């Protein structure tokens, strides 16, 4: 597609204090030389939901997965990821600690083949939290926050795999927020769910906005317009446009953005 147009970008800037995390010239290379992401500099405002949209292969998932260093094993990531005045894209950073602060929910619900309770407490126990009462409390808090408590409170020791897809995905959210992260990265969290489950999930995410900063990759533009405050449009590895969701959907600046919004490609 029209590669030359990627030079022209419209990126909204926030002040550094307003951002929960921001990147500076983030580039990702696969296999040493194949560049998948080009100098992306985006900031994500605290306690908002930001949607990352764009066609398949536009680099939005690659970008998202770079933020909590999930690409470490498969790609080289250049540039800065600033989190609490610290560039966390450095070798010396403890990625395990980082990932507790920047949680992630995946496209396909991936609960562990364990009980519902165990799904939530497993990582906590692995981190040395053994106090039974405290763990029970965290289980309830996290499940309530993920709007799942009422549905599962009587079967906490039943298999998580017996839950529906939508419940499993909310369990995955509960599992992530049990670690008390500041940021939640969501990689197309609703793409494997039916419309009813999707609506519930979106309600949950809206509730969570009060406490967490969320960055969500989505293919579903209605979803982006329903729940996000800000939207970034990715194209061929470039972040072309970043603005309030309203502006992106009603008054896009770039030609490619406009065509994507109208559904001409993607």
């Amino acid at each position, binding site marked *: 597609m029209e590669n030359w147009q990627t030079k022209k970008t419209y990126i909204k800037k926030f002040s550094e204090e307003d951002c929960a995390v921001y990147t500076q010239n983030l580039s990702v290379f696969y296999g040493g030389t194949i560049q998948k992401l080009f100098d992306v500099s985006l900031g994500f405002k605290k306690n908002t939901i930001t949607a990352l949209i764009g066609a398949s292969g536009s680099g939005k998932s690659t970008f998202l997965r770079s933020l909590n260093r999930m690409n470490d094993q498969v790609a080289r990531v250049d540039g800065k990821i600033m989190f609490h005045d610290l560039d966390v894209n450095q070798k010396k950073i403890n990625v395990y*600690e980082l990932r507790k602060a920047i949680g992630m929910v995946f496209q396909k619900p991936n609960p562990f*083949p364990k009980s519902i309770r165990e799904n939530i407490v497993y990582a906590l126990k692995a981190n040395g939290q053994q106090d039974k009462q405290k763990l029970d409390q965290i289980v309830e808090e996290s499940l309530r926050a993920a709007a799942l408590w009422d549905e599962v409170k009587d079967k906490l020791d039943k*298999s998580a795999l017996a839950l529906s897809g939508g419940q499993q995905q909310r369990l995955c959210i509960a599992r992530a927020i049990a*670690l008390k992260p500041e940021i939640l990265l969501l990689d197309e969290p609703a793409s494997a769910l039916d419309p009813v489950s999707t609506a519930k999930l979106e309600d949950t995410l809206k509730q969570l906005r009060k406490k967490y900063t969320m960055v969500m990759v989505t293919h579903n533009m209605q979803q982006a317009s329903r729940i996000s405050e800000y939207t970034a449009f990715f194209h061929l590895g470039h972040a072309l446009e970043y603005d309030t969701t309203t502006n992106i959907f009603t008054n896009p600046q770039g030609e490619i953005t406009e065509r994507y919004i109208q559904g001409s490609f993607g």
Partner: protein
Amino acid sequence: MNSKRNDRIATGVIYLLVGIVILLLVGIIGNILVSGVPHLSWHFLTSASSSFEAGGGIRDQLFNSLYLLLLTLIISMPIALGAAIYLAEYAADNWLTQLIRTTIEILSSLPSIVVGLFGYLLFVVQFGLGFSIIAGALALTFFNLPTLTSNIEEAIKGVPQTQREAGWALGLSNWKTIRGIVLPAALPGIITGVILSAGRVFGEAAALIYTAGQSGSTVDYSNWNMFSATSFLNIMRPAETLAVHIWKVNTEGIIPDVNVVSAGTSALLVIVVIIFNLGARALGNWLYKRLTAAKIK
């Protein structure tokens, strides 16, 4: 209408071929069971074998087979598990990994008699272990390791990548993810793999003839001192297994009831292997349900 006719012919041929396989299997197993099961009796299972009189049993051979299997698994399990974890989770895709895989493949297709002769030279002669259970167990470990490693590796690889990602995203280290999430999820498959390879080990004869030996020593089942020469647990004593026993009575046996003994022993061997196979499936399923579902407190 040519493609329709061809399709019918192809389907017919496939059914025919499957039928031949099933017929062969049912025929062999049926024949062994029909001719052997009538000779199985409590007396047969619990009395010692006899060298030249009729009416001997296979008590010692049965115990030896199980004991050898147990020792083999104790030795080969940790090695195979480690190798499988390495191959499935850590090995980079390079020439060294390829070399390891090729080696494992070659080792698994090594004729068991060659493994036996190798074991004879190395363990029996070179290490001076003599014809002994431990020499047999080491030879069987060689025989068993490649299959066991690939079985476990397959089970580990069968765990979806999304499970590992879930672990990493929760801040778990690679090892914690493997130990706490991947291995439990793979456990049913691992158990199935272990038991299936155990069936192969249990029925193995050629690798044992020159390592564990063909003669049974006098065994005292009340002597629990492993280091006593007459103890049934002594790993330095020679030990004949069921499969070796069948081979022996048929080649050099002078007992008058050779046919009865070998038919009975064969039937027992087949039954145990069938139990292993069915048990593997049942245990795998049960474990999977157990691990994925409720923990009752």
